[in-house]
């Protein structure tokens, strides 16, 4: 087994809810509630879950784009939430973030070349004469043409803008990239192009990904190990093939059976979950999934299941497994 590049231990991120005329804290939204997992060097780790499950907050907290409430995140053994601002800044180039919406994540008044080269300059990683060359290099790596360098973001389509976002992050030669729903805003034919770009880059640059998505079919295609989140907790972690062939958690099973498959001949027995995902401000007691779980017992209503090893490399948090 390869060494862990990123280790997340009992990470928590709570957002306060304020109320009353004095704006006192009256509760917390537990966006990430005691999450532990490791991302190994060179792998693409997929984090899936529905909206409000805390997957984006997990990604942001890992890179310290937002401060944690408790727990630790170790990147190559260094606790990212404990290091000084200067030290963090020194580490930044090697960990990058790709955003979901290619329309709002680029400055509309900055030429593409400047937007991509900016980070190199800021970190003092290249001098002015070098930058243009380096930018053109990553542009072509990301499937754009060298003449795009002097254009503005509005001149590009959604797929091209996402390529620019990717170029911006890889110009710093990172080792670790967190990509938050990078293909969700794109059409199918464009989505395929970007997914292929992600796998090409991983091969060429030996990147490690944390790939956040709600789309199980995208994650299956791109990721080698997958974690499933529900209401701020990880409910199952397994290697891709294992997870899709033998999902253990009832939520994972329901999620898998809910994905529509483009084959009209296929008649599947679908597990339809009742109800909605509960509010993370007031999650159910015991197992958070018990309100929607078709198999819930009395024990599930009382006792919180812990994430434990069910098989070699297959972890699950469920009393029934």
């Amino acid at each position: 087994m390869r060494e862990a590049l990123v280790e997340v231990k009992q990470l928590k991120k709570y957002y306060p809810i304020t109320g009353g005329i004095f704006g006192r804290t009256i509760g917390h939204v537990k966006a990430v509630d005691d999450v532990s997992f490791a991302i190994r060097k060179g792998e693409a780790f997929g984090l899936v879950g529905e909206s409000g499950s805390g997957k984006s907050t997990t990604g942001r907290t890992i890179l310290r784009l937002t401060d944690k409430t408790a727990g630790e995140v170790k990147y190559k053994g260094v606790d990212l939430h404990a290091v000084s601002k200067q030290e963090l800044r020194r580490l930044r180039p090697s960990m990058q973030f790709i955003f979901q919406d290619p329309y709002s994540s680029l400055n509309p008044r900055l030429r593409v070349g400047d937007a991509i080269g900016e980070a190199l300059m800021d970190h003092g990683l290249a001098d002015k004469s070098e930058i243009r060359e380096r930018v053109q290099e990553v542009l072509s790596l990301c499937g754009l043409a060298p003449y795009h360098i002097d254009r503005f973001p509005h001149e590009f389509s959604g797929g091209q803008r996402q390529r620019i976002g990717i170029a911006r992050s890889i110009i710093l030669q990172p080792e670790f990239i967190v990509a938050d729903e990078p293909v969700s805003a794109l059409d199918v034919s464009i989505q395929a192009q970007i997914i292929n770009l992600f796998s090409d880059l991983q091969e060429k640059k030996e990147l490690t990904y944390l790939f956040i998505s709600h789309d199980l079919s995208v994650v299956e295609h791109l990721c080698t190990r997958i974690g499933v989140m529900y209401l701020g907790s990880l409910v199952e972690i397994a290697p891709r093939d294992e997870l899709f062939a033998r999902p253990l958690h009832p939520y994972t099973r329901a999620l898998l059976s809910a994905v529509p498959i483009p084959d009209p001949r296929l008649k599947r027995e679908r597990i339809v979950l009742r109800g909605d995902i509960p509010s993370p401000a007031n999650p159910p007691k015991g197992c958070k999934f018990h309100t929607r779980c078709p198999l819930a017992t009395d024990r599930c209503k009382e006792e919180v299941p812990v994430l434990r090893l069910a098989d070699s490399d297959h972890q699950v948090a469920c009393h029934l497994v």
Partner: protein
Amino acid sequence: MTNALLTIDHLQTHFFTPSGVVKAVNDISLRVREGETVCIVGESGCGKSVTAMSVLGLVAEPQGKVVGGDIRFDGVDLLQLSPLEKQQLRGNDIAMIFQEPMSSLNPVLTIGEQIMEPLWEHLLLSKKEARAKAIELISLVGIPRPEEIMNAYPHQLSGGMLQRIMIAIAISCNPRLLIADEPTTALDVTIQAQILDLLREIKETYNTAILLITHDLGVVAEMADYVVVMYAGKVIEEGPVLELFSNPRHPYTRGLLQAKPVIGQRKKRLNSIPGQVPNLIGLADSCYFHDRCESCMSVCRLKQPELKQIDDGHRVACWLYEEESGLA
């Protein structure tokens, strides 16, 4: 074979913008029979939503205008109706479900008021009857505690529940045709599964015809009886769902089917369609897909292929299947 409920013939809806005329819907024809689900599938900007808007007379004038063709619902020409007649038709016979349940309900009215409105406007029920019917509708779409929900405001409900409310409003007057524009795109998969089940139930119980607009081929495979594939304002292929998925003919349809990652069928690389959807302003007289097509021939750059029957009920607009292509 049952009769066509909705017939669209050579519909053209254009938008007049400062930079030129956008032919959003460019000569399309389609039929929806009673009790049938027809899916329009395509990528953003292909004209699928504008087609639906044209049927309901909701195209924003003066920028947008239906400039040609006709739309018949049960024999009545919808384009000739007065605003009042249109209003009576909408809601009563044709109902629409929009993509964004969060923004299509009025935030300052209670759910109850919004469900009851069509009941007294269209069915002329009394307040008391409308209330009873509204409660019945809310439980029909699978929401528990309907009396409480009646007094709730939209912000108090989740996206999935709001979409159920939208469906309740849409079916309140027993429409014969339900137009659903990406009804599950804004929802999570487990909630999407619930909503698709609900739509199927409604279709079976009331024999409602559904015109479903989506970009998701998975949803198409689950819901459709008949599929219409659109590209750049044109219908490029259509056919019964089984035929279309097992035997897609148009290179674009094939590309779309291969571009989508499917669980359990992992490939080393996804087949992607190169390039992007063309700008709809000032398109030349060619096949609009030619610059992205693997099988592009010289004729494709010069002339537009017509939608032609190739098999029973399966039609395609592509020079590959026309004898004329050999001559050109």
